[in-house]
């Protein structure tokens, strides 16, 4: 591949990657892939990609100017494999052709899902118990039920929890799982947690649809461990939240 063409393709691919990342950032879909804490890192990446693309473009302009001025320019074939360039098309193609979708119950078959634990956190326990009952998410409730040996103090507390619906044949007809993925870094390390919801509407809900469930908490024993259950008073369909994943 001629040198300047090689540089141009490089520059265009870097620019495409830069725009792809920036697009995911502005559409909010970046959180389908990575934990929101790492967004600054992606912004840094976008800036660096733009700088690199700009450098390559200006390098080409410079080399063309030198050639026009009749300088002795060493225009040679570029040694590195052109195949390197085409690999960069793969993530772009996957990102553009397959509609973005956060991890959902279709990942359960390989990643599994959990109703009791194992979830211990060194620092967040104090904060966990201070959180108002209505502000607790699926993870908070499971952590509390995992941590406390006596959960009677929490029975009857009003919960307001969002998650996606997972209907499992093993559950009773009036039950479904309200689930979230917990992601520390990126979707690769995500694991699912779920709490049971009891509701007469259970059969009418669509698999993987996002809902906000409100109702009092009760307790159930799964595998000799306490797990929280919501007696749903209301179930409201909601769009995919800004941050579909929880942070452990």
């Amino acid at each position, binding site marked *: 591949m001629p040198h300047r063409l090689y540089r141009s393709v490089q520059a265009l691919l*870097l620019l495409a990657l830069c725009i792809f990342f920036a697009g995911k950032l502005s559409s909010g879909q970046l959180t389908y*892939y990575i934990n929101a804490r790492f967004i600054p890192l992606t912004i840094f990446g976008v800036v660096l990609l733009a700088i690199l693309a700009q450098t390559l473009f200006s390098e080409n302009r410079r080399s063309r100017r030198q050639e026009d001025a009749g300088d002795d320019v060493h225009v040679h074939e570029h*040694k*590195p494999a052109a195949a390197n360039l085409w690999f960069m098309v793969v993530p772009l193609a996957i990102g553009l052709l*397959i509609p973005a979708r956060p*991890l959902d119950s279709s990942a359960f078959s390989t990643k599994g899902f959990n109703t009791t634990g194992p979830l211990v956190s060194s620092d967040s326990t104090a904060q966990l118990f201070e959180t108002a009952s209505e502000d607790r998410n699926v993870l908070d409730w499971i952590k509390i039920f995992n941590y406390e040996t006596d959960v009677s103090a929490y029975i009857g507390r009003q919960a307001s929890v969002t998650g996606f619906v997972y209907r499992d044949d093993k559950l009773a007809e009036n039950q479904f799982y309200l689930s979230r993925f*917990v992601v520390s870094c990126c979707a690769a390390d995500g694991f699912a947690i779920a709490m049971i919801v009891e509701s007469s509407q259970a059969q009418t809900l669509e698999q993987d649809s996002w809902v906000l469930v409100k109702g009092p908490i009760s307790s159930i024993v799964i595998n000799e461990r306490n797990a929280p259950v919501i007696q749903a008073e209301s179930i409201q369909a909601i769009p995919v939240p800004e941050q579909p994943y929880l942070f452990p």
Partner: protein
Amino acid sequence: MAVVVLLLVVSSMLPVSVFTWLWDRLNVFATVFLGIFVEAVPYLLLGTLASGLVEIFLDRDQMSKWVSHRPVAAAVGGAFMGMIFPVCECGVVPLTRRLFHKGMPLSAGIAFLLAAPVLNPIVVLSTAAAFGWGQMLFWRMAVSLVIAVVVGLVFSVEKDAANVLRPVMTMEHEHQHDLPKTFAEKIRAALLIAADEFFEMGRYLIIGAALAAGLQTFVAQSVLLSISSGPVLPVLVMLGLAVLLSICSTVDAFVALGFIGTFSFGSVLSFLVFGPMVDIKSIIMYSQVFRKRAVSYLVIIPFLMSLLAGILFNFVRP
């Protein structure tokens, strides 16, 4: 044409559920693949940028002045050098290759390669955030340091770096004629090298991320997690998981935290020590820089030593 017709006929006979199943698998694959890729790109950019700057601003004479050529001192020095460079396992590979190119001895470079992803300040902070300033952090750093130095020493036996490193074709061909003189020219030259290396290493990152995502799409983790009894098996499971998940070392501590309830201290420690040194994407990136035999040493010695460390801790702290 015939193929298309055949495909259409065959696909019309398949139940709809096969398509939804395939579509679901594809979606999981895409999300996990892009997750690893989006997370790794900024780190890879940082690493290639560091490599470009080293190429332009560091010359061979300075290198030989700084780095000892006695094997033990070089290996220890290389490992401690990892404390200053904020690179994780994606960025460290191009940087290490550049350091070799600048005349760094094998033992120092290998120790740096293995130690930097664990000892660097970002990883220390994230491990401390997950586990506190305690035993886990201390032993993670100490065990990694020992493994890095030992592997570095193993490589110091080889006197000819060409037997370990694959020949580099792309280096320094571009600016031999007009060496950059001003600061701006130097920065531009460093950026051009970074761009080349981003594509070269990015290729292997993409292959590795696709493999890891493929495994996560089709192999159930519960198969691994169901075997967690005895002093040896859980360590093996955690080592397998470290390779399978291919998580960046800067954040793997948070992932490891999730295993603390089910797995022993030693098993989780082995995950934290081995993961940054060896996972699917780093094996593939190593194979671009090192010859096959060297890659197998880089995988097998850390594996055995992490396994040993995990088992030892399982006996001391069950």
